């Protein structure tokens, strides 16, 4: 009990705990769609891309870096979507070029001009130190937005994830749903970046969703489980990070990975079988 209560006497830890559990929850929630649509690499790429915007905006106005990084991320997301749809460049290659170039630019800017915001290392691996009230407000706002989007567009989101072609024929505006999902994903990554870290965000989009998939065959339950698992990873990861004295993002991801192994072993072949086809997303199956 003492172990649980002691860190709570610090204001920074209270803030960290709140931010980590909220981050885990929204990444777990939106991660279900990302994993089922085979977009994990897009999540990974977007996080790196947003880092470029993050660094660039600090040169101009440190207090607006969140807005700049967000815009940069959304523009990258739309650029990836456009390049993959309009040209012969494959999605993987497009993401590789656009987002890693943006990340490289961020690293260069950081190296040349330094930073007035979070340190380079904190931005990469996450930190619970120096979380501002503004960041918490931003995260709460993004949590509300993400939850509203998932609830209000539940059936359209599910349908277009299940089979975009059938959904389009049935009257779902698949393009608009996809664009909205990319924007919500960019904002979720941005809001969770400081605690989880650029390089680790993608893992938290994937791990809770895959664990949830191993536990259930129902979509509704998968959403609920993934959100809960994400929250749990945030909470437990935060405590272990405090005691192990390592960056918060690393421990949150390691807790998730450990949980993944536990669930994989305890569900036996059934869990593995359920998660086997996760990367066989409809976009791959649709042929000309």
């Amino acid at each position: 009990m003492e172990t649980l209560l002691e860190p709570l006497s610090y204001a920074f830890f209270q803030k960290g705990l709140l931010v980590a559990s909220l981050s885990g929850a929204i990444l777990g929630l939106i991660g279900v769609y990302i994993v089922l649509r085979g977009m994990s690499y897009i999540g990974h790429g977007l996080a790196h891309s947003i880092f470029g915007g993050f660094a660039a905006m600090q040169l101009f106005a440190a207090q607006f870096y969140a807005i700049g990084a967000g815009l940069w991320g959304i523009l990258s997301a739309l650029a990836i979507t456009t390049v993959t749809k309009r040209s012969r460049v494959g999605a993987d290659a497009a993401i590789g070029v656009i987002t890693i170039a943006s990340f490289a630019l961020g690293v260069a800017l950081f190296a040349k001009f330094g930073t007035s915001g979070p340190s380079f290392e904190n931005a990469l691996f996450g930190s619970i130190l120096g979380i501002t009230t503004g960041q918490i407000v931003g995260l709460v706002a993004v949590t509300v937005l993400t939850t509203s989007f998932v609830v209000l567009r539940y059936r359209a989101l599910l349908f277009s994830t299940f089979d975009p072609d059938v959904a389009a024929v049935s009257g779902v505006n698949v393009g608009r749903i996809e664009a909205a999902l990319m924007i919500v994903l960019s904002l979720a990554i941005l809001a969770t970046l400081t605690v989880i870290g650029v390089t680790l965000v993608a893992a938290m989009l994937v791990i809770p969703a895959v664990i949830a998939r191993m536990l259930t065959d129902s979509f509704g339950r998968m959403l609920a489980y993934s959100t809960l698992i994400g929250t749990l990873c945030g909470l437990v990861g935060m405590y272990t990070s405090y005691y192990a004295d390592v960056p918060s993002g690393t421990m949150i991801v390691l807790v998730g990975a450990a949980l993944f192994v536990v669930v994989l072993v305890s569900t036996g072949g059934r869990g593995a079988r359920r998660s086997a086809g996760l990367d066989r997303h409809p976009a791959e199956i649709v042929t000309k």
Partner: protein
Amino acid sequence: MTGTGVGPELIRLNGVNASYDHHLVLEDVSFHVHEDQFTGIVGPSGAGKTTLLKLLLQTLDPVAGTVWRAPDLRVGYVPQLESVNWNFPITVFECVLMSRKSSRIRPWANASEKASVSAVLDRLGIGDLGERHIRELSGGQQQRMFWPERSCGNHKYFFWMSQPVAWTSQRVTIFCIY
């Protein structure tokens, strides 16, 4: 084609060309489909059957010619079984519910929707399998899951399926490809 062909026109194609990346797949295609008509399209792999359907569904724009659809036409679609991701985490009940428009803010089904989905499942002969995963259905049951519901209202219903394994007795316009 079967049917009288004298009912109102649902779809008309006039001199349509379709291409992918400047490679012409369909050239100068013209035909029309009337209400209560049964149409079958047969052709070898790569002949352009799916391209034709994409034109009809207006998910692909023709490079020449026109595609006309009746304004109040509703389209039902039974996908090829092989093209569905049967490992997707979704129960039979959720799958049928998903395609319904939700007028309420909350995403889950209310009592009347539950009853209505159950009635549809009963009619399809899979009433007791609602909580099962879609993979657990047989091939015929899987295809029936995508069949349009009888309550089409006053709308004209155009319904197409790829490689059907069983038939419906519903009075809808059916278009199928092999």
